[in-house]
C-alpha cells in the first residue's frame, strides 16, 4: 500500500518564542505569561491594539522581563520612567541575540537614548543607578 497525501489542511497556533520558556516546541504556549504592564498575555495585544502578532510585537528585556512593544514604549516615554524596567527598576535594554527583539533594536536604541539623562555613557550607568537610589 502506498499512501499519498494530496492536500493537507492544518491549523497552527503561533506564539512568541521566548528563550528559556520551552524549547522543544511540542508544548503549547503557556497562558500565564503576561505583559508586566498591561497584564495581557504576551500572545495577546496591548490595550490599544486590535490585532496580535506583527501589529503588536513583544520585546524581551535584558532583565528577562517581557513587554508588549507599545506598552514599554509608552512607559519609557514618560519622564518618570528614566529608562528603567518597570518591574525591576534596572536600566531597560533589549536582550541581545533574541530573534524577537531583532526588529525592534533600532527603534529602542533611539528611545532609550532619549529617555535616559543625556551624556551618560555606558560606564556611567552604574553611577547613575547609584544616584537614582540615593535620590530615593
Amino acid at each position: 500500500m502506498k499512501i499519498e497525501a494530496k492536500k493537507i489542511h492544518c491549523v497552527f497556533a503561533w506564539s512568541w518564542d521566548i528563550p528559556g520558556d520551552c524549547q522543544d516546541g511540542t508544548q503549547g504556549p503557556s497562558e500565564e505569561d503576561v505583559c508586566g504592564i498591561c497584564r495581557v498575555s504576551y500572545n495577546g495585544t496591548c490595550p490599544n491594539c486590535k490585532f496580535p502578532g506583527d501589529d503588536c510585537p513583544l520585546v524581551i528585556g535584558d532583565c528577562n522581563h517581557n513587554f508588549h512593544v507599545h506598552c514599554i514604549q509608552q512607559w519609557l516615554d514618560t519622564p518618570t520612567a528614566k529608562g528603567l524596567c518597570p518591574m525591576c527598576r534596572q536600566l531597560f535594554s533589549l536582550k541581545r541575540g533574541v530573534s524577537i527583539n531583532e526588529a525592534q533594536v533600532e527603534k529602542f536604541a533611539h528611545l532609550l537614548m532619549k529617555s535616559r539623562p543625556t551624556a551618560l555613557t555606558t560606564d556611567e550607568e552604574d553611577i547613575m543607578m547609584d544616584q537614582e537610589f540615593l535620590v530615593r
Partner: protein
Amino acid sequence: MAFLNEERVLTRRLQDCVSSVNPSLIDDLDGILTWLNPNEQESNHQMRPPSLRLKNGFKLLLDNKEIPSTFIELIREYLFLQTRAHFFRNFENVRSFKEVQKLEKYYEFPLKYVNLFSTDEWDNELNGFRAYLFSNNAILRCTIKQRLRQLILDDDFDMATKIYFWICQALECSLVYLILDILMDKVCEYAEHNMRGSYRKRYVVMETFNTFISKYWSSFANMLKCAEDEHEITTQIFNCFEKEFLRIRTSEIFEIFVANYPDSSPTLLELRNVLKSPEDFTHLISEFLRQFEERRMNPSITTAEILLSYVNAVKSILTVDTTGRYFQLLTNFIRPYVMERRDAVTTFLYAMLELDVSEISDPNVTSIHMEVLKDLARQLKDPEFTSLERFAAVEKNKGSIDTGFPVLFDHGKALHEQILDSFLHWTPEPSGTIRTKSNSPLLNKNLLDIILEIFDSKDVVINEFLAIFTRKLLALKYYRLDPKWLRSLKLLKKKFDVRNYSNGQDVSNINNIDVMLKDIKQSEELSTKMHAIPELSDKVYPKFISYLFWNAATEPFSKSTEFRLPTWLNNEVGKYARVYSQMKPGRKLHLFKYQGTVELCLTFDDGRVLESEVSFDRAAVISVFLEQDSQQGLTLMQIITKTGLIETTVKIHLQYWLDMAALYLNFDEGVYKILENYEKAAQQEHNVPVRQLKCKLRNIETSSETIDNIDDKQHQQFIDSMSRALPFIQGMLTNLGSLKPEKIHSFLKIAVPKEVGYSATLTQLETYLNVLVDEERLLATANGSYKLNKNTDPKR
C-alpha cells in the same frame, strides 16, 4: 259559577226571544248554539261546514224579521261569552304560534258561515286575546320570540314577518328592540359564517356587510318600518360587523399570527384598520399569548418551531400594531421559556446563517428540523421587515409628542403659539395601554434586533456565533468564506457594532472575529509565499492562528490528547513550522493535531485506489501500517502504542479503514493487515465485509456520499461524543456497583463538566451502554441495569 249562571241566563233569554216568535225554532236555536259554541268540542262545528239543517236554522233564525233585534245581540254576547270562556280555560296550554293560529282559526271558523260581527269587532276581540296571551303566557311569549329569532336566522322572512306583525298587532306597538336584538344575532351568525377562516381576503368586513345588506336589509327594514336607505342604522350594522370581525379574529388569533402567517397578511392589514382602542389591542394580545402558550410552549414542540412561531408572531404583531408597542409583550412573555431551551441560540443562528446539513454538526438536527430552519431563514430575510423605518417614523412622531416638542413648525403661527398648542393638544397615552418597559424606541431597529431580544443578552448570541464561526473557520479549506457567511458576518457586525457596546468583554468578543479573519487572510498570504519555497510541499494549506482569539474551539494543550503524527506528515508540517519561524522571527508554531485534515490517496497492489479525506489521527492509524515492522499485521494494542491514541478512538478509526476495505482483520492471528489484494482476500477470508464488494474499487467519490457511510459516520460521531462520558460511567459503576440507565443518565447530567459536555438523551445513552455491553466492557443485568465487566482487562 258566574259563567254558568250567565250562560244559563243568556240561553234562557235567547230561547225566550225565539219562543216568543215560534217555539218550534227552539231546537234549531239549540243546534246553532251548540254548533257555534267552542266549548262543546264534541258536538260543535269541529271545523266542518254546517249541515243543511243548520244552514236552514241560520236562515230561519237570523234572517227572521219577526225575531226581535235583541236576538242578534244576544247571540253575539253568547258567542263572546263562550269564546272567552274557552280562551281563558285554554290559553295557558297554548305553547306555540301554530297553536295560537289554530285557536284563532277555531274561533273564527263558524263566523265564515254566520255573519254576526263586523271585521273590526271580531279583530278587536281577537287582539284582546292576543294581547292577553302575549302578556300572560310567559312560555308562549318565549317560544314565539324564539321562533321569530329562529326563522330570521334561517332566512325564512315570510313567516317571520307574519309572526312579527301578529305580535305587533297583539301589543298594538312595534317591537323594535326585539327585532334589533335578532338583527344583532343575525349579524353575529352571518359574520361567523363568512369571516371565520377566510384569512386570505382583504376587506372581509366590507364584503360581508354588503352581501348582508343586499340579502336581508329589505326584510329588516320592512319589519323595523324604516327606510331602506336609512344610513344611520346601516352604519351601526357596519360597526357591528367590525366588532364581530374583531371578535372572530381574536378567537383565531394564533392561526392568523402564526400558523397561517404569510398567507394571512391580508387579514392582518384589515385587522390593523379595525383595531382602534388600546383595550382591543390588549385583549387581542393577551388572547394571543394565551393561545401561544397553549399551542407552542410545551416540550413536544421543537425549538426551531418555537422560534419560527415567534418570528411570525412578531411580524404579525408589527403589521397590526404600527406603533410597535406590543411585540415587546410577546418577547417578555416567551423569553424565559426560550431561554430554558439550550439549543435556542444555536437553532436561531443556524437559521440566520442559513447553514446546510454539512455545516451543522449537531446530531439532534434532522431533516424535519432543516425544513423548519429553512422556513425560519426565509422569514428572517423578509425584506419588508429588514428595515422598520415605517415604524420608526411613527415612533418618531409619537416621541416628539410625548416630549412635548412640536414635530413641525407651522410658519403661519408664532413660535410660542405653536409650542403652546402642542402642549395644549398633548394627549396622554390611554390608560388602558399596556406599557412596556421598552426604553429604546423602535428607531433603527429591525426584525433581527427584535428577535435577538428574545435571548437574555446579546452575549449569548455572540458567544454561540463565535463558537459556530470558529468551528467553521477551523474547518475551512483554502482560506475563502462563502458569500453567505460574509453576508451574515456583515449583518452581525452591524448589529453588534462595537460602538454600541459599553461592556469591554463584548467588544473583545466581536474583535475576535476580526482577528480570526485577519489570521486567515495572513495565512493565505503566508502560504502563497511558502508554496513558492522549493523545499516546501505546495500540498499543505496551513492556517496560522492567534490562539488566544480562537478560544471557542481550540483544543487543550495537555499531553493527554497528544498522539504521534505519521512521519511523513510530521516532516511536512515540521518544515512549515521551521520556515514560519524564519519568516516571522521570534515566533514559533504549535500544531493543533485534532484540527487538521488530510486528503489521502491509498494505492494497493491490486490497483485499487482509495481516496478519502480524514483527520490526522485517522491518517495516523493507517500510516502505522507503512512501517517496516508492520508487514505481519498489527494487533490493537500495537496500534495503540504506535499511535499514542486511546483505545476507543483507535477502534473507531480501524473500523473506518475496515469499512473502506483498506484493512482487514485476521481473526486467527488477531491482527489487522493491509488489504492489498481485494479479490484474493475476499476468497480466502470470510470476514471481508461483503457490502464492500460493490463499491470502493476506484472509489473516486468521497466516502460521505454513500448512505451507508453517512450512517456509519453518524454512528461513529455518536460513539465519539459518548465516549467522553465513558470515564464518568466507569467511575460511577466502580463506586456504586450496578446502576439503571436512568440513574446513570441523571448522574452524568450532573457530573460531566460543561467543557466535556454531555447532551445525550436517555435513549442515546442506552444505545451507547448497549454498545459497551457488546464490547464486553459492561454487563447488562436481568433487571435492566448495567455493571462493569470485571472479567475484561481493565486497560482495554
